[in-house]
């Protein structure tokens, strides 16, 4: 089974590599045209959620997949992004396209806060610290009632509006907004991965001491990975808050962090495509396999156990057969 899977993914890559000129435009048309395929709003909403979780898994993938630092608390940045954007837009009634970057920025700063312990910790200790951080963030959201209205949560968050038009699922506005944010995240992550920073992060994952001996400032890059990943998780949080229009401390729990981690692992650590595949599978499976409703979290747990045992590199992860892409003039 294992060989078939990796052969399949390699044949797909080969196909895409060979006629890149056709594949990307076709894909763009398909994505942009999707809502008009007449599928119901219910399915469109699932696709949007797949997009949101792709953004979250891409950002967690940077920290866990590429830099090898396990973070169990990524829902914290998701929550911070959502709360900041909601609160700023309500109290100063600013447009979504101003509050979302602010929210992502503040989430990034919190990423810095959480990134600092990486100076001293790694592996299990770091994972548990991120978990503790996420619970502390939830406690703050629950108890800082003067600002976050505590358990009452924030209701009637304004819909995002672009040039005066309110973006909703029915007018496909939210779908295209998600596609824009997702494209932004993907391009940024791909740019980082295909550069000296990406190589430095992978070196840290492979052998942190050897990377240090090669002059890589490992702490700087680990913290940078946390900050960037927190930024995009915050962005996803801002988008989600204005889509669902009501958030409270129970919206962002440890379960969310574990769902994002399962996506990264199922899809393939250290891959980009894996994040989309993982999100598509784990977001849509409870809808498609109705009878598994009750066992949803048992399945998430099983995904983690089975993947770690049989295919730790995930569906798309692991060594690629295609040659390393040399930049133009670099050959």
């Amino acid at each position, binding site marked *: 089974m294992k060989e078939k899977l990796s052969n399949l993914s390699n044949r797909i890559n080969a196909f895409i590599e060979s006629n890149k000129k056709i594949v990307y435009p076709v894909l763009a048309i398909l994505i942009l045209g999707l809502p008009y395929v007449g599928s119901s709003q219910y399915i469109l909403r699932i696709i949007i959620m797949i997009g949101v979780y792709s953004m979250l898994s891409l950002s967690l993938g940077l920290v*866990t997949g590429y830099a*090898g630092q*396990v973070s*169990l608390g990524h829902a914290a940045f998701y929550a911070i992004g959502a709360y900041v954007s909601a609160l700023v837009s309500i109290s100063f009634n600013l447009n979504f396209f101003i509050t979302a970057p602010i929210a992502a920025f503040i989430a990034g700063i919190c990423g810095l806060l959480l990134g600092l*312990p990486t100076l*001293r*910790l790694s*592996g*299990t*200790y770091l*994972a*548990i*610290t991120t*978990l*503790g*951080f996420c*619970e*502390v963030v939830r*406690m*703050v959201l*629950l*108890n800082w009632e003067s600002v976050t209205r505590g358990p009452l949560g924030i209701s009637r968050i304004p819909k995002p509006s672009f040039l005066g038009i309110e973006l909703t699922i029915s007018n496909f506005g939210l779908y295209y907004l998600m596609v824009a944010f997702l494209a932004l995240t993907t391009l940024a992550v791909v740019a980082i991965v295909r550069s000296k920073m990406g190589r430095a992060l992978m070196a840290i994952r492979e052998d942190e*001491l050897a990377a240090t001996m090669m002059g890589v400032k490992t702490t700087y890059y680990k913290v940078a990975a946390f900050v960037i990943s927190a930024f995009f998780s915050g962005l996803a949080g801002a988008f989600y808050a204005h889509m669902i229009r009501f958030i409270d401390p129970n919206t962002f729990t*440890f379960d969310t962090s*574990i769902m994002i*981690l399962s996506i990264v*692992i199922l899809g393939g650590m250290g891959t980009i495509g894996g994040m989309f595949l993982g999100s598509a599978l784990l977001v849509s499976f409870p809808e498609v396999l109705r009878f598994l409703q*009750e*066992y949803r*979290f*048992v399945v*998430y*747990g*099983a*995904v*983690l*156990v089975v993947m*770690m*045992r049989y295919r*730790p590199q995930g569906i798309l992860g692991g060594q690629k057969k295609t040659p390393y892409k040399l930049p133009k003039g670099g050959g």
Partner: protein
Amino acid sequence: MVLQQLSNGLTLGMVYALIAVGYSLVFGILRLVNFSHGSVYAFGAHMAMLFVSMQFGIIPAFILSIVLTGILGIAIDKMALAPLRAKKSKGIAALITTIGISYIIQNVLMITFGSQTKFFPKLFDFGSIYIGGVAFNTTQICISGVSLMLLLILSCVIRYTKVGLAMRAVEQNQKAANLMGIDVNFVVTFTFFLGGASAAIAGTLISGYYQIVYPNMGFVAGLKAFSAAVLGGIGVLYGSIFGGLVVGISESFAAAYLGGSYRDAVAFLILIIVLLIKPTGLFGKKGITKV
């Protein structure tokens, strides 16, 4: 009032110490944080409740739950963790596996026993004794007593028995121990059994004290017990007792003076501060980086 809060904190601390022991045992031997320990503790409590509801006496139910949960501990190792060790997979693989296992156990409990909070008979309840105006409920005293006794037994097993020596050897260096003829697999299995058994004892005692059992009781308690284990120096048994008491007392004082909603946050803050300042905890030893 302060004395009463202290007594509350002591009981709570003993409870966390009892769970923390399970973390320290497994970490000591395998350098692995067994994230599923919290749900194993919940499993133990549910087993005891099941046997009590099947008209077994308290003590038979207690023993049956200990044995069954011990076997669960072994099953976790054999089915999920041992293959990873055999494959020499990366450290985070085992950590993520234990997270997966804790999800499976917790949700299977939820499905089989239903999500309601269920009744659990009071253990060792002979009313309360008043010493200097502070109410000491006999259950509290018995829990602390049983916990201390269990921790002493465990320490003696590890210090004075043959298998204890084997455990300490495996803890220092698995390869060397293996070369010396110690059946490492048996030691690991025995450690997981002890971990599971101590979790069952903790689960039953705590359910007996609060008289309720519910599927995700293991999550928060497990995390607090972990911070107790880390505070005391993970891998060091008596460290867990000390860590448990500190977490328990600071939690009850936080609840009393800062308000109930801050008690969980305090336990997590302690965990983060300890990890930042001295990850090896109060009694842990500092490792040397070997190139």
